[in-house]
């Protein structure tokens, strides 16, 4: 502990950052020691990425101080951070695929590196230093994910970095590549370089990190040496929230099986089979990228699949497109409201009617009266706040926009309602109203598949929960009987 205080490379004190409607970071403090591998864990939305972006200069902090290598950092830019010796390796690499490895490592610094010859010579030395034999003249587009990561690390080393932040570095690596990454991390640590290792995967935290900081909802919960913690404790700190009256009473209308999905296989999903019962809310728990969205999109017909067998009410159905999915009585509330759900420049009423145009027909034509009536019904039923049905939907709040999308689908009287992140970016009050709508829908005989990155939401709303990791279903739980820790453990895989 003494060593850390005397030899701190990065010190973050009382940093806060708010976005409209969300406090992404609230009074966050942490210290990273020199030559220490420091892990940061937390659920989606805990504030890890925001913190990282403040450190690199992508965002500006609202309050607090950041001291890096003895210097107080006020405003910074990504390039300045690099020059100071702070490198970030993002999950999505920032390499230019049409340029060579050497050019990428010394991008914008060819002269400093001594022209093209110097660039390639130095790049080669850096890569050899981390035990990589990638040819510096290869184009980045030809490299594997792991090789790209090596190039990013070499690039960080080329700046004489004192601190390297790695965001989910293992997300697309194979076991073998992961082992190699471990070697490199240990090698850098012994060379006195500090590493901030951000990951969902607890195994890696235990294997590589000396110290770990646990974040949740924009707060730092605790910072402890890894050896003092066990997995159970860590997961407990990641998810442990106390919530009162944020959710309505769990509905209980579960009946006979409604939909059977068997052998659902795509490039990402591996032989998914499960059953959805009538009147049930079935929750999918998993990390972002585990395959939750892929499963529901494949069922609905929005994506191509290698294999799937679906039975609805005992009858085999062929769903080849979204259109087929809708015809089979499935409704789909997509995760990205603005890109996939709304037609932003259009009115509230045409956004509600767009899945129900057939109902508006009067002879050959669409009836504006019927459209107005349909919209007015949904507005009063779902308590949508809008100046008028003819108002442009882009001006509504996120919660009201989401209610319009849900209303659009309730109007189709779906048997199965798929809701992917239905409350993302919505304030607490509107969230509760959306939960009530879900409850009403199952009361009316629909079944719901609920995907959410907010664990408490899934656990409080679902009758049954499936955990999904790496394209597979890894477990089935009754959220009333099993603790959040156990479920999260299984979802982390």
């Amino acid at each position, binding site marked *: 502990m003494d060593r850390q205080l005397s030899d701190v490379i990065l010190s973050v004190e009382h940093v806060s950052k708010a976005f409209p409607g969300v406090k992404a970071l609230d009074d966050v403090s942490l210290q990273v020691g020199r030559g220490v591998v420091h892990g940061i864990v937390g659920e989606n939305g805990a504030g890890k990425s925001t913190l990282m972006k403040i450190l690199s200069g992508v965002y500006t902090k609202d309050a607090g101080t950041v001291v890096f290598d003895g210097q107080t950092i006020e405003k910074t830019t990504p390039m300045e951070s690099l020059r100071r010796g702070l490198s970030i390796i993002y999950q999505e690499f920032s390499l230019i695929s049409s340029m060579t490895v050497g050019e990428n490592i010394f991008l914008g610094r060819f002269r400093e590196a001594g022209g093209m010859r110097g660039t390639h010579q130095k790049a080669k030395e850096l890569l050899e230093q981390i035990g990589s034999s990638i040819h510096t003249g290869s184009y980045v587009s030809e490299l594997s994910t792991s090789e790209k990561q090596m190039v990013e690390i070499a690039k960080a080393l080329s700046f004489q970095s004192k601190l390297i932040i790695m965001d989910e570095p293992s997300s697309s690596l194979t076991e073998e590549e992961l082992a190699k990454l471990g070697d490199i991390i240990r090698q850098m640590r012994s060379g006195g370089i500090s590493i901030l290792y951000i990951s969902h995967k607890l195994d890696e935290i235990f294997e590589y990190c000396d110290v770990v900081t646990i974040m949740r909802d924009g707060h730092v919960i605790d910072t402890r040496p890894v050896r003092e913690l066990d997995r159970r404790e860590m997961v407990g700190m990641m998810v442990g929230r106390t919530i009162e009256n944020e959710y309505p009473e769990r509905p209980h209308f579960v009946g006979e099986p409604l939909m059977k999905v068997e052998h659902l296989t795509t490039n990402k999903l591996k032989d998914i089979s499960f059953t959805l019962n009538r009147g049930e809310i079935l929750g999918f728990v998993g990390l972002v990228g585990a395959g939750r969205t892929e499963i529901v999109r494949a069922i*609905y017909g929005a994506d191509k699949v290698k294999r799937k067998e679906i039975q609805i009410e005992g009858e085999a159905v062929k769903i080849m497109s979204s259109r087929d999915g809708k015809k089979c009585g499935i409704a789909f509330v997509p995760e990205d409201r603005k890109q996939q759900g709304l037609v932003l420049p259009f009115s509230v009423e045409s956004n509600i009617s767009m899945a129900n145009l057939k109902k508006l027909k009067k002879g050959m034509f669409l009836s504006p009266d019927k459209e107005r009536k349909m919209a007015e019904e949904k507005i009063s039923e779902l308590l949508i706040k809008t100046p008028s049905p003819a108002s442009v939907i882009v001006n509504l709040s996120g919660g009201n926009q989401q209610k319009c999308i849900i209303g659009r689908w309730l109007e189709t009287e779906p048997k199965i309602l798929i809701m992917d992140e239905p409350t993302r970016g919505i304030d607490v009050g509107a969230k509760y109203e959306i939960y009530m709508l879900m409850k009403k829908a199952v009361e009316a005989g629909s079944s719901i598949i609920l995907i959410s990155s907010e664990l408490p939401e899934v656990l409080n709303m679902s009758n049954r929960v499936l955990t999904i990791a790496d394209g597979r279903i890894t477990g089935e739980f009754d959220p009333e009987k099993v603790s959040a820790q156990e479920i999260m453990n299984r979802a982390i895989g």
Partner: protein
Amino acid sequence: MDAKTRIGYFVKNNLVLVTIMILAAVTALIEPKFLTVANLGNLMNQFGPLSFVALGMTLAIIGGFIDLSVAGIVSLSAVFTISMIDVLGQGGALIAGLAAGVAMGLLNAFIVVSCGALTQAKALFITYGLSAVYSAAALLYTDGATQHMSHLASRTDLFKAVGSGRAGFIPASFLLFIIIMALLHVFLTRTQTGREICLTGANITAADLCGIPVKRRITLVFVLSGVLSAFGAIVLFSRITTASPLLGANYETNAILAVVVGGTSLAGGRGSVVRTMLGVMLVILLSNCLNLLGVSTYLQSVCKGAVLIIAIWLDRRRVK
């Protein structure tokens, strides 16, 4: 709201109409003959070929695409139709010409959809390439020779009626334009298919997830653009009684100009064929006015380009 702000609103919401009125007033001042019935008929006559191509382009742009192949379609369907008059008779040739437009539209759509080029930019390049193909096909088909209606053995009075016939002082082509425009307006605003085209153009992902058959709607849009371009070609060669295999050159630019100036959004989904009529009117008046002022053709192109850029800028502002 006082009178001043009310006028401000009117100008802002009806910019095209106001510009047309100003242009008309300027032209009338320079050339008093401008306001005679005969000249009004002439102006309507000028609506001619471009207005049909622009109607097709309006549908394409509302559907989320820009169809650059119209130049090639105009050239190829014109020379093809003329060559068919002696083979099929004039009625048959008219149908064959329109069918050629349908076929080229289908080919556009087939390639765009099967390449998965469902963004405006990707489809832009595909239709640009196909325009070159259609133009080259027109050259190959005619060996580069201009086709003359006067060299034909068969009767051509149907085409002459379409190209330069008049009902009173109103040109037949203008009447046809008004009828087709009215039908398309009802189609876009009052039918399910029309609404689905608008939704697809505004957000293809959301439309697809709502079960709208987006690929079929895209196909329809390209087919309509193709057939309207072919019809524009027929009006054009009927009027000038000849068809060069390069007849359609630059038609895409002028059509896009008319559509965008009219106020149809390049972002897709929002617009109307009625606005396009105003756009065509503005383009015609502009060249009319510039001609009267004795501005050279080269400078006129500069003016058209400037007007297009201003229209796009205004469209961007409206989106924000």
